[in-house]
């Protein structure tokens, strides 16, 4: 389990991560969401001891990454755009890290098979495509068979088949009791694989809940309605008990509104269902924070 507590990082005058707190529970996939520049990668780098927090802590079962008895066997991480020495083969890269982390060398071939690079293990990474590098980065994360996985935009560079496979892999890992944190700037990308969501914008937490709760909060219909006589529309809404604000009716479907307006003789000039669903909820939550600083 990962616990992030009051984590803050300043780069000069920019506060990249601002008093962020959340937890990642075992047996679940947690989506770590936010627009570009929201502070996702910075948060993960702080959790892994690569970047020193200005304030706050990130702990795994109460211990900071550098205090873990055997870090790679407890926490696996694949950060965005993992870098490799171009002249080293995939197998040698893993073998080297396995030595440093006290992991059995036999595991290298196993993880290469898991990520689908079994046949290219003795090729130099310099010749790897972006997707192959993403897979090798994932192999590094899985090397120690850790209980906690931190994956930073793991589907970057993967083909559609790879994305589906990645989704299945994350579900599989959570199914076996692992705590999986997966970052993305698109909710729709991870929607099918996450249980919980942690949404940040401008380094601040804007929402944390099970995905189902987020969906329930935003499952109501939202319809833009423009009537020739706004007062008539307002009284109709009042009669029917609809919530109407700023020309948006929340609750009934467009068909219900249209039928009721027709029956009541209210002339409508526009009747449009807003883009619904989770992506809209996500956009609404991070709205106004979207500008990259």
């Amino acid at each position, binding site marked *: 389990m990962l616990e992030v507590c009051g984590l803050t990082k300043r780069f000069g005058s920019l506060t990249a991560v601002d008093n962020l707190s959340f937890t990642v529970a*075992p*047996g679940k996939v947690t989506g770590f969401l936010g627009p570009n520049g929201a502070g996702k990668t910075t948060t993960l*780098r702080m959790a*892994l*001891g*690569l*970047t*020193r927090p200005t304030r706050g802590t990130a702990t795994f*079962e109460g211990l900071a*990454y*550098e205090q*873990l*008895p*055997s*870090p*790679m*066997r*407890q926490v696996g*991480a694949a*950060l965005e755009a*993992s*870098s*490799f*020495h*171009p*002249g*080293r*083969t995939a197998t*040698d*890269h893993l*073998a*080297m*890290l396995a*030595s*440093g*982390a*006290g992991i059995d060398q036999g595991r290298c071939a*196993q993880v290469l*098979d*898991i990520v689908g690079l079994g046949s290219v293990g003795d090729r130099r990474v310099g010749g790897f495509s972006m997707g192959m590098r993403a897979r090798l980065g994932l192999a*590094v994360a*899985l090397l120690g*068979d850790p*209980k906690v996985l931190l994956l930073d935009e793991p589907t970057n560079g993967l083909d559609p088949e790879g994305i589906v*496979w990645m989704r*299945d*892999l994350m579900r*599989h*890992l959570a199914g*076996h*009791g*692992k705590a999986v944190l997966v970052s993305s700037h698109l909710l729709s990308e991870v929607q099918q694989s996450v249980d919980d969501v942690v949404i940040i914008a401008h380094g601040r937490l804007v929402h944390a809940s099970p995905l189902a709760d987020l969906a329930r909060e935003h499952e109501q219909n939202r319809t833009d309605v423009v009537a020739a006589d706004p007062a008539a529309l307002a009284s109709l809404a009042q009669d029917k008990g609809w919530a109407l604000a700023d020309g948006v009716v929340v609750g009934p479907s467009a068909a219900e509104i249209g039928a009721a307006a027709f029956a009541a003789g209210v002339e409508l000039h526009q009747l449009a269902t807003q883009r619904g669903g989770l992506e809209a909820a996500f956009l609404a939550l991070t709205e106004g924070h979207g500008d990259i600083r």
Partner: protein
Amino acid sequence: MTTQLASTSDEPQAPPPPQPSPLRAAWQTLVMEFRKYFSTRMWWILLLVTLAWTAMNIITMVLAVHFGGDQAADDNMVIPKGDDLARLLYSMGTTFGFVFPAIIGAMSVAGEYRHQTLTQTLLADPVRWRVLSAKFVSTVPLGALYAVAVIVGCLLFGALPLALLGDATALGSGHTWQMFARMVLAMVLWGLVGVGLGTLINNQMVAIVTLLSITMFLEPTLRSIPVLIGHDVPVLAYLPGALGDAVTGESLYSMLGEFGVSLLSLGPAVIGLLVYSVGLTVAGYFLRFRRDVH
């Protein structure tokens, strides 16, 4: 794919892995650094370059001294004879060859910044002083390896041609083999100085250029001062190149006779180069290596 996925463990309640002993942890990191050295082509490319470079220099000097030794005698130079000459020629292997272990040492740290591999290194071992210490220690055998290349170059392209030309090879003298041993020591120490340089200057190219300009330009200029002003300047013996020459025990500068810079003896010279290497590494640790890794 499902069967392959099954190889991830099934026990969420598995106890955390045991803490390895401090010695075990240090050994693991050391092995990681060794694997890093030997899993790219750089180590053997530099080894071949060291051999070729030594061969070229030594054979040129052997021929120059054999066929042109008399002309040089007009100058202030004191050209030794017999075994002493042979040893002087061999010692040039490290006079030129020291840069190669220094380069590989610098690359072991600066290369991690260049290829951004430091992130994963620190995921495997997040204890930074241990990682840097492992880089320091793992460079020792590399330095020795390059020294072997230099010595092989000396034998094949120095001793062999000398023997063929009928000149003294000095191979029968224990003093010569002692000097070879000191050359190994010098090369190892230069490797460590390289680690320090790469830790302080994280740009690989800048680190190497700095090394070359200090040792090949600045220092020779400074060391010519005593010749120009006509008396010794003792502090020059503490320059890194002078320390390296002192560890080897022979040097081109000894040809300058009484005008040459006086060198330290072996013990102080070894300590001097160690101070450079440890000093640079420790400074680099506090100024660079402990910083955020992006």
